[in-house]
């Protein structure tokens, strides 16, 4: 019987970069457990030798003509940026304090 603990939900939230609240952990732990129990039925076929389907219409090596076509200008690319500086995206620090 699958089950997702509150701690496990907290771990998933960290992996998914979601700073969830304590109240959300309580709510989501119960709901995710319920959903996982309902979808676990797919495990009925786990042992069967069936090829997996990842895409309804399998296509491989889709190429287009190697032609130059216009992309976004720097101004367009930066237009929706939360913060920009000197014509670039300004982002928060990516290393820890001690680094």
């Amino acid at each position, binding site marked *: 019987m699958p089950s*997702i603990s509150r701690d496990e939900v907290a771990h998933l939230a960290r992996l998914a970069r979601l700073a969830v609240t304590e109240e959300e952990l309580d709510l989501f732990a119960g709901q995710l457990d319920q959903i996982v129990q*309902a979808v676990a039925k797919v495990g009925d076929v*786990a042992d069967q030798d069936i090829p997996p389907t990842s*895409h309804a219409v399998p*296509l491989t090596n889709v190429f287009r003509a190697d032609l130059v076509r216009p992309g976004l200008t720097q101004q367009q690319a930066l237009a929706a*940026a939360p913060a920009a500086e000197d014509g670039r995206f300004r982002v*928060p620090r990516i290393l820890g304090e001690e680094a």
Partner: protein
Amino acid sequence: MTDLIRLTAAELAAKIQAKDVSAVEVAQAHLDRIGAVDSAVHAFLHVDTERALQAAKAVDEDVAAGRPAASPLAGVPLALKDVLTMQGAPTTCGSKMLEGWNPPYDATVTLKLLQAGVVILGKTNMDEFAMGSSTENSAYGTTHNPWDLDRIPGGSGGGSAAALAAFEAPLAIGTDTGGSIRQPGSVTGTVGVKPTYGTVSRYGLVAFSSSLDQAGPCARTVLDAALLHEVIGGHDPLDSTSIDAPLPPVVAAAREGANGELTGVRVGVVTQFAGDGYQPGVLASFEAAVAQLKELGAEIVEVSCPSFDLALPAYYLIAPSECSSNLARFDAMRYGLRVGDDATRSAEEVMSLTREAGFGPEVKRRIMLGTYALSSGYYDAYYGSAQKVRTLISRDFDAAFGTVDVLISPTTPTTAFRIGERANDPMAMYKADLCTIPSNLAGNAALSVPSGLSDDDGLPVGLQIMSPALQDHRGYRVAAAYEAARNAAQGGPLINRVPELEVAH
């Protein structure tokens, strides 16, 4: 003038070309209608009055100059789901994450609409990032069903469907990942079509579950949906999953079907989609539809698709898995919301705070569910098994289409439920997609056409017609024949029975 909003797209286009009415008058009539009723319906997140009138004016100039129409829908107004990008208007996907985001490019579907002279009125409300069956997951408020404003209009494309049923637009675009075009069509008494996967470009469609997402036409008649289908469909080099093949002849099929003859057409009734959990009035409407198809000459057979029982569980592993990957792009760095950037916090902290603030509960649930299903130790049991189920579902379809031309079922197990009724019960909400999901997993074509009102609550019911991949025209033919017969038997189009909305002054 008010009658203009009740005409079909085909009728409007003909009147514009015949100079009976100008495209500007048509656009203005719909803009006025939006102004009068949308405070109650809330189908639109953004109305683009100025550009709509400009586009209509350009069509009128073509007509005046005697230039050939850009398409059979030139001058016809349309409501665009807010998950497709359009320059000069915000694309929010119903999320705070993208509040006020002005995309720097047009979706291929948008571009084709503009080139066809279709008049885009604005962007419609939806469940956040297309995750939901009621529009209650929109960050910008719920859309109300014009048949009963206390009820949901379906989802995720509830805004598009409600715009049609409220006569705010004769055409709309939806996207269907697990039923988001067909289920809203069903509960609003309108027509909704999910084309074969890969036949309408996904370029500029903000991705939720890339192997399932498919844009398609929404309308009040089968022919209007077919006309719109041919405008938006076709191969697109900008979408690497786009199929490089001619579009199925859906308009010809809709016209052929309207002659009302289905002799020799083999129709399979999916036996799995009945019984517990189905509203009696929905089943009664479905049975009446089956009888009507029989009268039109179709041969009805029962078909068992045993793997369809596993479709819903497989979908709620595959779609969240792809969603957890796709929505990783909302990282607060290049566009969209950024929260907590106080010059002390790291990028990772800002990212987590932003995603916490920007996503609603259903999106968070699905991201975490997908993260779980893809994590090592669980991958084989969940995601791997779901992919095997996907194969089994395709095999069931293949076997069924070996003996029948199309498959039918109710579109969704119930009529429109009350706003709030399922909001705190994710599994109950998910069951709205029970009958629509198999076609997404197999990538084939499916549509919903109104089958009347449920005799237990007087609300619209939809008939789902499923066709093999690239055989979309089969469904159109059957739907058009059925629509004509139902209209004749029940005293005109179902949509004429939608209650009058109170008009704001």
